[in-house]
């Protein structure tokens, strides 16, 4: 039994998951530390020892919060509305996460997800609101809107890809430029198309109409009965299916292999007869399409409003949040499903924190950012760890007194581990 566990531990995948878990835990602890510091130094009218304790409990388990009880204490349990909203909010970041992950697998850093997301928003909302459902059946409009958004995203993603393939432009820089171009373009588009904006008499200035106004909305697929009181819909199922599709594409098809080969070594891939330029453009187009389809699924939910007036100065956070999702999942498409749901859980926790305590929801954004920061070198820490153990396995030169004691204690604690690692060293 112990041996199988060790075998599992020695697997690269397990180590990757462990590294991600360490990042997550460290991020949550950092969030708690910030909560404690703010609680101790903040306004004593809004923070007490009890509220610090409440805050930390919500940081970790806000998903299970059911509000406050009669005595004002926090109550926990199954909260279907929280669960449903978690799945609802996981959809866009799952798709942008997939987008970043696919690009990473092919050796590209797609930081252009916000722009692609915006292009998807534009295409989807325009088609979904412009084709009258009295003429064309609603499901067809839904499909057309989804395809329009995805296609626009693919084109938008292909631009940095093209520049990279043909002109050697760094895709990170090109993506940053296309992001801000997209922000201004989409702003311009919605400003010109006044018929898409919420009419002033609704009092919702600065918003685009929801697609339900035209009778277009993703089917709930019974999920609303399972998780009543939430915004959940079939989008989450579609997103998971797409994620599995991406997994198959990347790992089980020739195209996926070619894309990954280009990412591993472009020149070697070309030598092997793979069209490297075409594949770079293609992988960016796929990434763009994925990010944009996140926007399509999100806004086709029927009740998601799009605030368009400020997008030229602050890009949608769903786009950037694809980066932590992909990093946490170590760029594995199936992992993205879980990491996006986890990220969205953090989001719900933040919301509960804002509703129930004097802290606010931005604490969860801090935690997410900390996780990204940690995961930027988590793989490295993983490598460092294995390296250290290898050194230990080799005959060590005489260490100082205390170090020797510590090393002895460690060795007695985990003899198998050392043995396993010497095997590792032999393999390497």
């Amino acid at each position: 039994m112990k041996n199988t566990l060790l075998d599992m531990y020695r697997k690269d995948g397990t180590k990757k998951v462990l590294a991600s878990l360490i990042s997550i835990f460290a991020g949550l602890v950092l969030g708690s530390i910030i909560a404690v510091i703010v609680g101790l130094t903040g306004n004593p009218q809004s923070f007490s020892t009890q509220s610090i304790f409440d805050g930390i409990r919500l940081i970790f388990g806000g998903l299970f919060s059911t509000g406050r009880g009669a005595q004002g204490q926090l109550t926990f349990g199954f909260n279907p509305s929280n669960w449903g909203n978690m799945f609802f909010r996981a959809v866009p970041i799952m798709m942008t996460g997939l987008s970043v992950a696919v690009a990473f697998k092919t050796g590209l850093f797609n930081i252009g997800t916000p722009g692609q997301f915006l292009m998807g928003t534009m295409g989807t909302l325009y088609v979904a609101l412009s084709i009258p459902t009295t003429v064309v059946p609603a499901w067809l409009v839904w499909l057309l809107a989804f395809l329009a958004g995805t296609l626009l995203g693919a084109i938008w993603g292909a631009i940095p890809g093209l520049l990279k393939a043909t002109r050697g432009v760094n895709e990170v820089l090109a993506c940053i430029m296309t992001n801000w171009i997209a922000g201004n373009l989409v702003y311009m588009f919605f400003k010109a198309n006044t018929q898409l904006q919420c009419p002033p008499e609704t009092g919702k200035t600065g918003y685009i109409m929801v697609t339900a106004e035209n009778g277009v909305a993703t089917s709930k697929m019974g999920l609303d009965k399972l998780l009543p009181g939430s915004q959940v819909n079939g989008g989450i199922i579609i997103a998971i299916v797409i994620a599995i599709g991406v997994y198959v594409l990347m790992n089980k098809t020739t195209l996926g292999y070619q894309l990954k080969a280009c990412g591993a070594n472009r020149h070697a891939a070309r030598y092997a007869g793979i069209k490297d330029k075409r594949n770079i453009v293609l992988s960016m187009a796929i990434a763009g399409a994925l990010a944009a389809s996140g926007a399509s699924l999100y806004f086709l939910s029927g009740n998601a409003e799009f605030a368009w007036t400020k997008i030229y100065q602050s890009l949608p956070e769903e786009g950037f949040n694809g980066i932590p999702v992909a990093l946490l999942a170590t760029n594995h498409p199936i992992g993205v499903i879980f990491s996006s749901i986890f990220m969205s859980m953090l989001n719900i926790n933040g919301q509960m924190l804002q509703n129930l305590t004097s802290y606010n929801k931005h604490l969860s954004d801090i935690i997410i950012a900390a996780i990204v920061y940690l995961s930027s070198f988590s793989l490295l820490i993983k490598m460092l760890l294995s390296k250290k153990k290898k050194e230990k396995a080799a005959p060590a030169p005489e260490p100082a007194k205390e170090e020797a004691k510590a090393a002895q204690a460690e060795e007695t604690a985990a003899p198998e581990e050392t043995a396993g690692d010497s095997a590792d060293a032999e393999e390497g």
Partner: protein
Amino acid sequence: MAYLLQNTLTYTIPLMIVALAGIYAERSGIINLALEGIMIMGAFIGVLVVFSFQKSGAFDQDGAMALMLLALVIAAVAGAVFSLLLAFAAIHLKADQTIGGTALNLLAPALALFLIKIVCNQSTLGMYTGNAASWFMLKKSDFGITGEMNLLQEVFLHKIYPTTYICIVLYVVLSIVLYKTKFGLRLRACGENPQAADSLGINVYKMRYTGVLISGALSGIGGFVYALTTANCASTANVAGFGFLALAVMIFGNWKPLSTAGAALMFGLCQCIAAGYGSIDINGDGKFALSVLAKKLGDSGLDAGAVFRLLPFVVTLVVLAFTSKNSRAPKAEGIPYDKGSR
């Protein structure tokens, strides 16, 4: 004309100083994508300093200049400290610099918004009393000018924030440092060929830390200057993409200070036109030529503000496409320094 120049200058100064921040980091071999995030931190901390000292009554309006200088210095320190996160990950842990920078870009607005809400229970942190113009702006009377002014005086000596002078001086001094001193030469060497630099006894780690720290301090200053001059000394944890625009300025300027200053001026002009095309009177004949152009654009479904805002990015993209084959970017940027790979 004076109005146009003055407003162009307002947008140019933060762009220029932050682009120089980018130059310092990249010339030492570290890609600093976190310029935007550090700007946000600098803006937030600077405004927080102004807010808290005004609240505590430590400075009244007579001490406004001292308060502003203090805020500027603390914003610079905050930027440097914040950029240490990037430096530590990129230099010591050899992490992916783009991801590290992105993390800081996510962290800064989150942290700033979180603290703004804690401090003042709303989403904007402004000055405690008064406004930026009445406290920190220099008028012509401060220079002893009465009566008519010529164009130069009108642009540089009237209704101007002293931060403009500070930034210009800093820019000139630091550009000279980068090109004419031993330290500058060593810093640039670390961005071009760190192995060779190391073999000559230069401590690459130390140089890169210095580069990133200077970069952070300058971005912090740039962030505070942005908040002070364009946002009435208020912080909403958003600098409207100026950090990324500065990145574009730096690329456009070919990583060289003089051409970067030129690029900043051009991009600043675009920003200025985007912000106020309806009220700019170029040749002083009382006609708003740009608003006529804007109306023509508007008739064809284009928003003039957005057009001028996206123009710099398009131009940069085109420039990148045509120059990347023989780009002057530092050769070793983005590559963690590994002593073993000589």
